Structure formats: structure tokens, C-alpha cells
């Protein structure tokens, strides 16, 4: 005899919670700011999986502060599942016992506290993910019970406009709501009519007009005034030795100054190399202000964005042929889709790093900060599921001498994964090290694995001021290690390079110095940059770029 089982316990539970909260939710799902703490106490239960929206850009900061004010007797031991924990409130939750466990992707400014709290037992770490990996788990085993999200505007029915900074909202709401969870939104403003509906009211349970606009960090604005001659040299090497060499068209640029320098050299050095139309035509990146000159010069066909960037709203809206813009005329970013494109459809990921070990493993971890991964590993790897072909992807795969060892005579491509780094960092700390600080961090924060941003077998090229190591051309680990030593300069690792070995690598074009590549180091000056300061970028944009106050230089 089959026992009767209830199949709608989640929905029933949600209905009970919402009933308890009913007194705070008015017409149009509206909640007064003063009632939010009580609302949270009504809909959240101890041990719930809870998401507070926020990544490296926008933050549901008012709701985070409200969660911090709940009665700890009623709500405790929450399991936070969220992209990032950059706000002090995110970690205060653990300090106060409201939260207990964390699954996340990016630590940001709180990275030091994350490590400390793990060590002190205040925070139980689930795992450090990449964005896409965490989003995937929202639909498997980490679905939030309650999500606290943010949007620019809501209308009188509770529809949301997330617009320029849509970012993670769709993926959080979809996972939460369609597993009968509860979604609460903070909005900057409640209006009669939205520019467009990004999230339908039916997926939202409560909307509060926040006393202050949500916090957004202009994380992707790099001031051209701070770019150094050495970054320009590295950028020249990349453009000539990689962008031109492989004809790379579909690219993600990281957040660092090296890629900003490259962006600002497309209209100068890139133009001189004849790369326009042949490189950087399709990009996955946020609306970097430093992309403006290249866009204006007609380099770029398409840009899809993870998120927005403060000050770029009008510029992006005025370039709908390039950006993904809604019928209302404003950008729609979407981190999940941009990361998917970044994982499957890029030909190259290029970014900076802090440390590289003798095998080519590359890490930004320091001994006492759990910084997390964000999105880099998804783009800084070869997508094994990729089946479509592009020229640079195929060329890189064909170079790989180890391919026959794995799949015999079968041809296959490989993504270019480029790590640019000066051999010594600040305070003359060597960037090439025998052991990554990630090992020490794993010990200090009791992690199962050293958190490695890009694994050695994914890295195809390392670029330093000494030249480029074409790891994609190395037949085995010994050759890779020799190529890495050859570009490691005067670091202890670099000093182990043998002159005859380096000579042979150069002859085989596995290592190329600036001279081998025909890159004139004497030209590596700031005169190479199409824009040298923020005002130049404004001028390039025809006044459409409106930089945040902290970046102005006039």
C-alpha cells in the first residue's frame, strides 16, 4: 500500500510565511522601509538558505542592513548563498550568529574577515565558486529559500526595472521563485510606469522603496593616468605577439591595468599593426570607459556585459549597435549569460595575476584573504564542451604538441588563456614563486584546496617584460617549466633559467623576447595611449561618458 505523501510542502510553507507577513505587505506588494526587519523575521526561518543580491558591482545593501537587525532568537544559523560578500554587513551577519554557513564566489573588501572568521569558527565555508558554478548550484542543491534582491525601480504592481545593472537578478529570482521561494526587492524608486519590465511582478513577493539608492561600485573604471610604461610594454607584446599572431577576435578583458592599456592602444599600436577588423571585434566585458576610443574608431562589433559601469549609461545607450540595449534604450546586462558566453564562445581570456608557480599555475590569493574567484576561471579555461570553430581557437589547438597524447590524430582547438605579469610586484616582491601563497591560505583558512585562479594546464601564454612564453607550443611539463623560467626575469625562479636552454626555446619560437617579436621597447611610453586621462575619455565620447566624481580630473 503506497503511503500518501504531500507534494507541495514548499508551497504550503511559503504560503504560511507570507500569511504571517501579510500585515506588512500592502497593495502592489509594497512594504514600508520601517517594516522590513519585521517582514524578514516573518518570512525567514532559522537555518534557511538565504541570498542577498550583490556581486562586485550592485548591492542590496538596505536589505542586508535590515537582516542584520533581526532578532537573533528568531533567526539564526542561516546558510548564505550569494555571489559576493563585499559589504561589512555581509560578514557582520556571521559575527552575530544570524548566519552560519557561506557558499559564495567573491570576497572583495571583506576577504580578510572571511579568512579570519573561518579560522575562528564563526563561518562555516561551503565552497568558493566561480559565478557560473554558483548559479548552477542555485538550480541543484543550493536553491535559496528567501532572496533579497535590488532593482532601480518598481511600478505600482511590483514589476521591476533592473536596467543597466541587471547583473545577477534574473538568475537569483528564477531559481528562488520557481522552487516556491520568497523574493523581496529593494528599489530606489516606485514609479507609475517603468522604462521596461525586467522581472515580472508575479515573481516578486514584496517591494520596498529603499531610503537610499543601492550601492554600486565603479569597479571597472581604470584611470588612464595611472597606466605605467611597463604595462604599455606588456600591452605591446600582447598585441603583436598574441592578438596579431593568432588574429583573436572574441575576447574578455580582465579588470586590470594591462588590459586597460591594451584597450587604449587599439587605436594607436593596434591600428599600426593593421588589427582593426581582425582583432577584438566581439567582446564580453563590462562597459569599460577605456574601451571608448576603440569603439569610437570602429573596432568593435559587439559587447555583452556582466553588469553596468557607473557613468557609462548615456554612452552605452547612444551606441545600441554595439551594446545589448532594450527597446527602452538602456543596457541590459546579465551576468549569467555573459559568463556563459565567456565560458563557451570566447577565443581568448587575458588578465593580470599576482603570482605564477613553476608549473604555470596562476593565483591572486594572498595568505590571509579569501578573495574568491568571481568569473575569471570560467573564462580562463578551455571549455571542454565547445564544438564550434574559430581561427584563433583552432590555431592554438593545432600548436599543442600534447594533443596527440590525449586524443590521437583528432584535431581540436584550444582557448588562448593569457596571463600578463611584471616579474616583480610592489616592493620588489617576485611574482614568480616556488610555491603560491594559495597554499598558505589553504592552511590558514582550512580550505580543502589551495584556491587557484587559473590552473597551469589552462594557461597558454605568459607575458612579462622579458617576453612571451608560448606554453601552447610546449611538448611536456619540462618544456613548459623551462619556458616559464625563461620569462621570469631576475626572480629566483628566473635565475634558474639556463642560457642555452633559453636560446633553444627562442629558436623554436616557444619564447619570444620583445626583440624577437620586433617590439621596440623605447616606444613603450604613455604617448602610446589614445586617452591619457579621464577627461580625454569624456572628449572621445563626445561628452556622453559622465565619470563618477572620484575619477574627474578637471
Amino acid at each position, binding site marked *: 500500500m503506497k503511503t500518501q505523501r504531500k507534494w507541495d510542502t514548499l508551497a504550503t510553507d511559503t504560503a504560511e510565511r507570507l500569511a504571517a507577513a501579510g500585515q506588512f505587505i500592502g497593495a502592489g506588494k509594497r512594504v514600508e522601509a520601517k517594516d522590513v526587519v519585521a517582514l524578514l523575521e516573518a518570512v525567514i526561518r532559522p537555518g534557511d538558505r538565504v541570498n542577498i543580491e550583490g556581486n562586485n558591482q550592485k548591492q542590496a545593501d538596505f536589505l542586508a542592513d535590515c537582516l542584520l537587525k533581526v532578532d537573533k532568537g528568531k533567526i539564526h544559523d542561516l546558510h548564505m548563498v550569494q555571489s559576493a560578500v563585499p559589504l561589512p554587513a555581509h560578514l557582520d551577519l556571521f559575527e552575530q550568529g544570524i548566519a552560519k554557513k557561506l557558499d559564495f564566489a567573491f570576497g572583495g573588501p571583506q576577504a580578510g574577515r572571511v579568512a579570519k572568521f573561518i579560522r575562528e569558527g564563526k563561518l562555516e565555508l561551503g565552497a568558493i565558486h566561480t559565478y557560473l558554478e554558483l548559479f548552477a548550484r542555485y538550480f541543484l542543491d543550493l536553491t535559496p529559500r528567501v532572496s533579497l534582491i535590488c532593482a532601480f525601480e518598481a511600478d505600482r504592481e511590483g514589476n521591476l526595472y533592473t536596467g543597466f545593472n541587471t547583473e545577477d537578478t534574473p538568475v537569483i529570482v528564477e531559481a528562488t521563485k520557481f522552487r516556491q521561494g520568497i523574493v523581496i526587492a529593494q528599489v530606489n524608486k516606485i514609479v507609475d510606469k517603468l522604462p521596461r519590465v525586467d522581472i515580472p511582478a508575479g515573481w516578486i513577493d514584496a517591494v520596498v522603496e529603499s531610503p537610499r539608492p543601492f550601492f554600486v561600485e565603479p569597479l571597472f573604471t581604470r584611470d588612464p593616468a595611472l597606466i605605467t610604461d611597463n604595462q604599455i610594454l606588456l600591452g605591446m607584446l600582447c598585441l603583436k605577439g598574441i592578438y596579431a599572431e593568432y588574429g583573436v577576435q572574441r575576447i574578455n578583458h580582465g579588470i586590470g591595468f594591462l588590459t586597460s592599456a591594451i584597450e587604449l592602444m587599439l587605436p594607436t599600436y593596434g591600428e599600426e599593426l593593421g588589427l582593426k577588423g581582425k582583432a577584438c571585434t566581439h567582446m564580453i566585458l563590462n562597459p569599460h570607459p577605456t574601451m571608448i576610443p576603440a569603439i569610437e574608431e570602429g573596432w568593435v562589433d559587439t559587447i555583452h556585459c556582466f553588469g553596468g559601469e557607473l557613468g557609462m549609461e548615456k554612452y552605452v545607450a547612444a551606441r545600441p549597435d554595439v551594446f545589448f540595449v532594450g527597446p527602452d534604450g538602456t543596457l541590459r546586462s546579465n551576468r549569467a549569460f555573459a559568463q556563459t558566453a565567456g565560458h563557451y564562445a570566447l577565443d581568448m581570456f587575458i588578465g593580470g595575476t599576482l603570482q605564477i608557480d613553476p608549473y604555470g599555475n596562476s593565483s591572486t590569493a594572498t595568505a590571509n584573504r579569501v578573495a574568491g574567484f568571481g568569473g575569471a576561471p570560467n573564462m580562463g579555461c578551455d571549455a571542454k564542451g565547445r564544438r564550434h570553430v574559430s581561427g584563433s581557437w583552432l590555431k592554438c589547438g593545432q600548436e599543442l604538441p600534447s594533443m596527440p597524447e590525449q586524443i590521437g590524430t583528432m584535431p581540436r582547438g584550444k582557448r588562448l588563456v593569457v596571463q600578463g605579469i611584471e616579474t616583480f610586484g*610592489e616592493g620588489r616582491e617576485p611574482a614568480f614563486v616556488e610555491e603560491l601563497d594559495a597554499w598558505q591560505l589553504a592552511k590558514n583558512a582550512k580550505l580543502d584546496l589551495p584556491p587557484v585562479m587559473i590552473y597551469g594546464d589552462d594557461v597558454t601564454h605568459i607575458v612579462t617584460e622579458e617576453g612571451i612564453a608560448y606554453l601552447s607550443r610546449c611538448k611536456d611539463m619540462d618544456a613548459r617549466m623551462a619556458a616559464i623560467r625563461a620569462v621570469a*626575469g*631576475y626572480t629566483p625562479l628566473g635565475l634558474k633559467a639556463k642560457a642555452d636552454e633559453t636560446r633553444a626555446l627562442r629558436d623554436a619560437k616557444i619564447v619570444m623576447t620583445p626583440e624577437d617579436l620586433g617590439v621596440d621597447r623605447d616606444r613603450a611610453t604613455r604617448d602610446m595611449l589614445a586617452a591619457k586621462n579621464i577627461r580625454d575619455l569624456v572628449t572621445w565620447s563626445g561628452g556622453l561618458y559622465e565619470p563618477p566624481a572620484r575619477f574627474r580630473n578637471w
Partner: protein
Amino acid sequence: MALNTLEFECKCAAPAAAVTAPVHFGVVGSGDLEVLMTPAKAGGAVKVKVVTPVTGFDALWQRVLAAFVESAKLGDVAIEINDNNATPAVVTLRLRQALAEAAA
């Protein structure tokens, strides 16, 4: 407390280049340096003087300068550097830029 002064000589296998007139390049900004190259008869060697607030990198300075002198095939030159914590990459870049200036 006082500034650290390093003086040494480098000699490349086959000196072929020299500077004909004094040349100055660079600004002692943070992480940067200035270099002064002057003609100096030294039997084909290059005399180097580095003045820097940082200690503990003597061997590194010698290696970077020796490699520069070797690659530029430089001889009979005095190189004076005022440093403010430049990395080897910056040192090499500025030395080359100074030499390019001398040739211009």
C-alpha cells in the same frame, strides 16, 4: 637611515657602444628612477653608482646592470642612478630609454 650607495663595475664580452655626450633620463618618482650616463674611460668597463633608500638588493642591481651592459654592448661609460624603489623591469626600461636618448 642614510641612503644606500652601491658602486660596482660591469664589463661585457665585446664592448662596441659608448655614449659621446652626457645623457640624463627619468624622474625619481615612487617606483621609478633617474639615470645619468657620461663618457668615462674605464678600459672598456662600465662604472655604476646606484643611490637608493632600499637595502638588500645589491646582487639584483648587479645582475640587472650586467645584463643591460651586455645587451647594449656598452663600454667606457659611467652610469649613475638615483632610485626610489624601482622594479628590475622599470630599471631596464629606463636604462634603455636613456640609451635611446643618447643615440637620438
